[in-house]
């Protein structure tokens, strides 16, 4: 395919088994670091239906992945950058991270469901980072069908599931 680009994208390399010290330093026990980013996906003041997504991060053999990182990004559907701008710097920018551990309860995030765009369902894009050379992209789609929640899996070995939580 003809490409008129002037630069080539930097190739990816594995995040490795210690990704959590880089991107979740407090979760990994680096207590001298004052904060880590991505703790707050939604706060109590943000309007919207609150949902919980939970699951297990498993490898292809069904074994728990204890060194993983999950990122969630929820665009402000329908309002674009204005919503994102408004959320930046607070805990409600629509982006969050959590780590997986092999022998603990699955990580969870409670977050308001984002508004619906007129033509498409609101979506959360999740990228799952583990000790693997290339990221797996998974998108959980919250369909606009009334009272129905469906998840589509792009990375079927990710072990993610989406479920409805009537209230926290």
């Amino acid at each position, binding site marked *: 395919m003809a490409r008129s680009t002037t630069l080539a994208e930097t190739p990816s390399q594995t995040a490795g*088994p210690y990704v959590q010290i880089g991107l979740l330093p407090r979760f990994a026990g680096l207590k001298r670091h004052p*904060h880590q980013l991505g703790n707050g996906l939604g706060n109590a003041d943000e309007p919207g239906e609150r949902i919980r997504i939970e699951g297990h991060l498993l490898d292809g053999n069904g074994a728990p992945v204890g060194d993983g990182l999950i990122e969630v990004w929820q665009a402000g559907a329908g309002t674009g950058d204005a919503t994102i701008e408004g959320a930046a710097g607070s805990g409600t920018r629509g982006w969050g991270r959590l780590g997986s551990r092999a022998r603990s309860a699955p990580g969870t995030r409670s977050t308001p469901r984002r508004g619906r765009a007129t033509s498409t369902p609101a979506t959360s894009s999740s990228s799952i980072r583990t000790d693997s050379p290339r990221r797996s992209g998974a998108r959980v789609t919250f369909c606009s069908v009334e009272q129905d929640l469906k998840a589509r899996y792009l990375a079927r070995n990710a072990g993610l599931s989406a479920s409805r939580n009537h209230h926290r």
Partner: protein
Amino acid sequence: MTAASDDASAGFRPRDLNRHPKAHTPNYQSSIARSPRHALIAVPPTLGDTTGPLFGHADVGPTDHDLLTNHAAAGQSAIGERIILHGRVLDEDACPVPNTLVEIWQANAGGRYRHRRDSYLAALDPGFGGCGRTLTDADGRYRFHTIRPGAYPWPNVSDEWRPAHVHFSVFGSGFVQRLITQCYFEGDPLVARCPIVATLPDADAVSGVTARLDMDESVAFDSLAWRFDLVLRGRGATPFDNRPEGD
């Protein structure tokens, strides 16, 4: 399916997967159980793909970019060869990517990570955590002060040695630009022996993850500088929506 929404119309170029490692690379043993066995499914881009989280100066502390001091006791510094690791974040159209979050993590000068599962013989450095972050400036520039990490052994198909490397995480303006990679150091003879480097398709790709000695930015009697530029996906002329299945 149609394009997701008007807001998503400013698409990104398709990713050239031939420039990246294949997900299943058996010589890097960890990839065997951690790579998909089913074909990927193409989905149309949505607002969530072409936008991304915004970061600001409130997200970055005053010493977050300085790994020499950000884990050390007051007045102390990390042990090792002091280096400046700097460069620019650009996109494929050579446009700078400003105000984007760049995060790094690395082993200490002896080749050991500050991680509960790293039991390598090399000593932990009480003054080194190995974690840093910064925002690019208006021209896409970033700059870290750190130590050159050590090489270390790891178990794979057989025992192997990793070349000195620093892990990078970069966001960009759209979530589809998200990139996780590593930079190696020009001239390191372990690069050519590393099974993880060998997941890259060719020498040009290896060059794309190699930091180069930069004497112009080195500080006399203080630190050598290494330059590592990162290139994220560009917006360009090719509509994201036209990406063929499986590309």
